[in-house]
């Protein structure tokens, strides 16, 4: 294990994915200039080289790690860079930069800490750090996007969204907390009438989470993140305890909270009304949603082709509405395949969780996958009007430095967990 072993499957898949992305860049160049501009291939070149390098790094430092996970996210990240470049060249280059940085972060996570389970020792520190980040953002954050809410933190032109880091910290904290308390949560009961509920002291984190998500919702108008956190927590507590009462009661409490917020805060009300009827507000607040839907319709089944549609008619198309751009240019066929890649990743991650021997690692792997899955569901559901629109990035595909970094770190943790399993199996 300490030797150097090339990860052939991974390398082969990365080459395949790299060829797809490079092909996409070639098509884009031809669509835009009517011939292939060689200089346009520099960026996919950098991208392919960086993924190969990371695979080589892993053949030294994570020999046994799963070989299918990284090629899948690399391909999605590549398609993301491609589509963002098509929408805004400068932004595409920045996304490439963030992706490479994300790969570096992933490489670092693979070597430090030595064991994933070390992380559980500092669980309250992670939770505290997370809460601190939120507090700092609310107090001293910056409103980069002009949304009217301070969701960024940083200085000198580099801004990060703490929410992205927070989701990893919370996943680690929940995994550690649940692994320690799950027996108690699962078994201990207090009888209230016909319903048996767990003792209230163990419900504290549930209440804290509920409060946190509502805080995010109200103070930051960030319903997406609120839903995401609640979702991660409920998924993890379900995995840990197998008791449906937790997710069900949590969801009910959240719905109650949203209902309350609907009556107390106008922006929540506006958002709900917008979801139910964007049509009568087509030139106002509903413009974005409807233009997003039109782009999807224009894409149809086969798509308009890379660089051949007009997705830039959709506002904030590079982040929240990247799905509309993908839908317009790659069509239902392309988007369905990307969703297929995402669900494959989630399933692969969950099978890592199943194989993991350690309770903390199991919960963490499941929590990380739940994060990706819920995030996808929230934004795809929002774009397609299956649920109210809340701005969260589509994992690996939307533009966003913080999001890319966080996702790569999450995959780093997953790979580390998977690498531990095979080690023990041998």
């Amino acid at each position, binding site marked *: 294990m300490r030797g150097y072993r090339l990860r052939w*499957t991974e390398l082969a*898949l990365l080459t*395949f*994915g790299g*060829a*797809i992305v490079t*092909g*996409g860049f*070639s*098509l884009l160049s*031809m*669509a835009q200039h*009517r*011939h292939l501009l060689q200089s346009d291939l520099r960026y996919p070149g950098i991208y392919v080289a960086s993924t190969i390098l990371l695979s080589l790094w892993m053949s030294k430092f994570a020999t046994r790690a799963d070989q*299918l996970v990284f090629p*899948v996210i690399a*391909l999605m990240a590549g*398609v993301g860079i491609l589509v963002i470049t098509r929408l805004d060249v400068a932004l595409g280059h920045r996304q490439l930069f963030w992706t490479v940085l994300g790969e570096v972060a992933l490489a670092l996570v693979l070597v430090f800490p030595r064991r994933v389970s070390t992380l559980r020792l500092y669980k309250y520190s992670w939770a505290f750090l997370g809460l601190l980040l939120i507090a700092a953002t609310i107090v001293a954050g910056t409103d980069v996007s002009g949304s009217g809410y301070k969701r960024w933190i940083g200085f000198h032109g580099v801004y990060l969204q703490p929410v992205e880091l927070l989701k990893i910290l919370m996943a680690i904290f929940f995994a550690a907390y649940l692994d320690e308390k799950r027996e108690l949560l699962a078994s201990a009961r207090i009888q209230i009438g016909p319903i048996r509920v767990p003792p209230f002291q163990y419900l504290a984190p549930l209440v804290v989470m509920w409060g946190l998500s509502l805080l995010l919702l109200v103070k930051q108008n960030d319903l997406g993140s609120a839903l995401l956190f609640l979702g991660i927590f409920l998924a993890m507590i379900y995995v840990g305890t*197998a008791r449906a009462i937790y997710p069900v009661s949590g969801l009910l409490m959240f719905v109650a909270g949203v209902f309350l917020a609907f009556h107390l805060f106008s922006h929540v009300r506006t958002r709900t009304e917008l979801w139910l009827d964007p049509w009568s507000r087509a030139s106002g607040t509903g413009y974005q949603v409807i233009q997003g839907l039109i782009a999807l319709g224009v894409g149809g089944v*086969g*798509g308009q*082709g*890379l660089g*051949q549609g007009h997705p830039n008619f959709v506002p904030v198309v590079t982040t929240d509405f990247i799905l509309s751009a993908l839908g317009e240019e*790659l*069509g239902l*066929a*392309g988007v369905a*395949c*990307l969703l*297929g*890649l995402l669900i*494959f990743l989630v399933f692969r991650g969950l099978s890592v969780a199943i194989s993991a021997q350690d309770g903390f690692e199991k919960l963490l792997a499941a929590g990380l996958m739940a994060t990706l899955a819920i995030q996808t569901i929230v934004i795809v559901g929002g774009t397609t009007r299956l649920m109210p629109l809340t701005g969260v990035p589509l994992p690996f595909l939307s533009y966003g430095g913080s999001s890319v970094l966080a996702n790569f770190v999450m995959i780093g943790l997953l790979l580390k967990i998977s690498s531990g399993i095979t080690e023990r199996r041998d």
Partner: protein
Amino acid sequence: MSVDDILLLGRVAFVVALYLFLLALALLLRRELRVRSLVQGERAPGDLLVMEPGESGLEAGERIPLLSTTSVGRDSANDIVLDDTFISAAHATVKWNGKGWVLADSGSTNGTRLNGKDVRRPVAMKPGDVVEFGQIKFKMVEL
């Protein structure tokens, strides 16, 4: 072929390639499962359904796949590892001979029972039977 034709073909090829990638993943997954089952022995057409997990960490209702020869015991070298104080290091084996099932005790301390009766010598077993290793109870079920 005009640039437009190339773009149209490329457009189709791009999406097709994405699907081929997904297909490649599926094929690799299948190969991996096959390799794993080769390493672990041939899969036999039956499962053990957990009825009473004891201290094993298994869960009631969980199905444990049986191989052509499945060793049961506390030692991690066994095919089914039962981490329970009443289980011996090598506790019992379940065999599939192509037609039927045979249950044999491997000289365990706390014994193996089939439908409540102690298994001293290898005995035939059929789906629906209840098998007990120490305090852990399974039901034999068909795949």
